[in-house]
């Protein structure tokens, strides 16, 4: 499938330079340099423990970095809580385990943040929420609770919940890893649709088919470092580093 690249602009969405992070004594991210442009779709892969989830969690400050700088949409992440809340409201995130709010209905999950963070009136927030639920193709589940939905449906609600904040950047943290095989496709289709609409996305995933189809760039991480990055075609056909070759042979080999 041919993908469109016209979306990518020169505008810098995320700028990470010389970023380092430690968990106690463990050096989990080492000298990360990364520039993401508006409209770019990036897939981050690598063995478990390589720091890929931690990397994207640093972008919305769910993890704090200790050295270097992260600038999101022109705002630098510091200890200033105002900046953090601002960035978080503009960067959507979808998690491996959905993390929907179980005490609220699907619709309430979607309207909560716009109403409290953006102070959108309830009527308008509901309209946006229904629009987003239609986009992920489950408007009929709006009044059910998350516990009554299947895993795939819950994950699509989680995507809709993020989209309701009209984010400029979306982070996906292994969003299909906790799903049964027959549900992975419905979630990936939603993500592909988003990608085609030109959303800036960073996806941590092992779905190499997805990477081939939508990514503009694939980043391979190991031991807390970016080992290799390239366009997907080149990345999969001609991996340069031995570690990348080993990794690809392990996940594509069966």
């Amino acid at each position, binding site marked *: 499938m041919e993908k469109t690249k016209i979306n990518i602009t020169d505008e810098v969405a995320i700028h990470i330079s010389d970023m380092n992070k430690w968990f106690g004594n463990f050096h989990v991210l080492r000298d990360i340099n990364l520039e993401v442009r508006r409209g770019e779709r990036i897939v981050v892969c690598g063995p478990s423990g390589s720091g890929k989830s931690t990397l994207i969690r640093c972008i919305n400050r769910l993890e704090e970095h200790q050295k270097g700088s992260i600038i999101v949409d022109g705002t630098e992440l510091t200890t200033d809580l105002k900046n953090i809340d601002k960035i978080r409201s503009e960067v959507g995130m979808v998690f491996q385990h959905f*993390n929907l*709010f179980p005490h609220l209905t699907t619709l309430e999950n979607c309207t*909560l943040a716009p109403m409290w963070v953006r102070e959108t009136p309830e009527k308008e927030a509901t309209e946006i929420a229904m629009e987003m639920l239609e986009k992920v193709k489950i408007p009929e589940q709006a009044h059910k609770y998350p516990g*009554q939905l299947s895993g795939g449906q819950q994950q699509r609600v*989680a995507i809709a919940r993020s989209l309701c904040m009209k984010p400029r950047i979306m982070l996906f943290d292994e969003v299909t890893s906790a799903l049964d095989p027959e549900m992975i496709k419905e979630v990936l289709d939603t993500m592909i649709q988003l990608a085609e609409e030109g959303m800036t996305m960073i996806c941590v995933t092992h779905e190499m088919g997805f990477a081939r189809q939508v990514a503009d760039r694939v980043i391979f991480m190991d031991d807390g470092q970016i080992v290799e990055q390239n366009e997907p075609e080149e990345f999969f056909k001609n991996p340069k580093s031995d570690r990348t070759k080993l990794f690809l042979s392990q996940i594509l080999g069966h």
Partner: protein
Amino acid sequence: MMTKIAFVRKKEIPPSAPPITEVGLIGWLRQNLFSSWLNSILTVLSVYFIVIMLWDFIPWAYGGHWNTKSLRECLDLDPDVACFSVLTARWKQLLFGLYPAEEYWRPTLTFIFLLLAIVPILFPKFFRFFWFSIIYPGLAVWLLWGGSFWSISIVYIGLTLGALFFLTLIRRYLKNYMIAAILAFLFTAVFFLFISSPLVGLLNVILPISLPFVESLKMGGFTLSLIVGVTGIVASFPIGILLALGRQSNLPVIKMICVGFIEFIRGVPLITLLFVASVLLNYFLPPGTNFDIVLRVVIMVTLFSAAYMAEVIRGGLAGLPLGQHEASASLGLTYWQSQRLIIMPQALKISIPGIVNTFIGLFKDTTLVSIISLRDPVGLASTIRADQKWNGIYWELYVAIGLMFFIFCWGMSQYSQYLERKLKTDK
């Protein structure tokens, strides 16, 4: 010999009804009462014990005397049945303590209003009447203790003015909540220190509304249990939430204060705290200060159960997956928004059984005030038994007191079960 592996179903098996021994009354009896030999024997034994207990209790209670003048008279009539006459003679005291008889309507009205005031809190359907729950505490204090209507109302007036002042600052002049809150606090303090008493004096002259004053030592019986119990429950709940959040806080000083408070209060028997309230506080306070004894007891009971409440709620907080915090943070909700909208509703729901347990415990612990010679129902029971006419009676009194407490506690338990069913969202 080779078996064939390939198989294709040709005929569907339709679902059919279960065997008769598994459903209905017979099924239930078989499964629950007579599932094995041991189980059957236990069933028969239990039924036997229930029967012999009721065998004696029912005639004792049913044939009881209600209208004799003293225990002696009861025993002369029939020593084998209950002598409920003590309740007939003293029920007013059990309900109202030493409250002046001509003012009994006041605690009665307060109780009726209490039932009305908790409805909007317990059932969201009636939330539009929540204003009544807000004015109820002041109303109750005025009805029970009496005095000038205005000296209670002024508290509400002062707090309302303070809140309005705060809102105006935020809307019109200031962006910073902290500074606005401090200014509003100063404003309210000035109001209460300098303006409130002349204003009350003025209002008393213009429109004197007042009830005869009743002092705290006259409060007693279930009135006292309810005053201490309900105030303790209402006040310990928010304090418990704040302590639980404080204990989880990242700020070391706040965390230390909360942990210290919780561990200290939990580590000390309630009776000790009550003694401190009744005796020791007088040594520490400047001579001549009149710090109301009921208020002191209420504060101690509140602090005591707040410490327990904090631990119960902390259990609920610990039961929440980290993902809930992360999801609400990733949407841009602030700490307090996320606590209020995401974390607390779920943590409190998990903790309902523990919270209600603490409430019930607190309510029953109010009987401990009899130790510091306040006249709650249990304290009154001793007083009544000291009376020559009723000397030697105990079953009837304590059964009645127990029954009253049971009704309240059972009500709380029933409500909590209803709430749990209502908040169930997973199926």
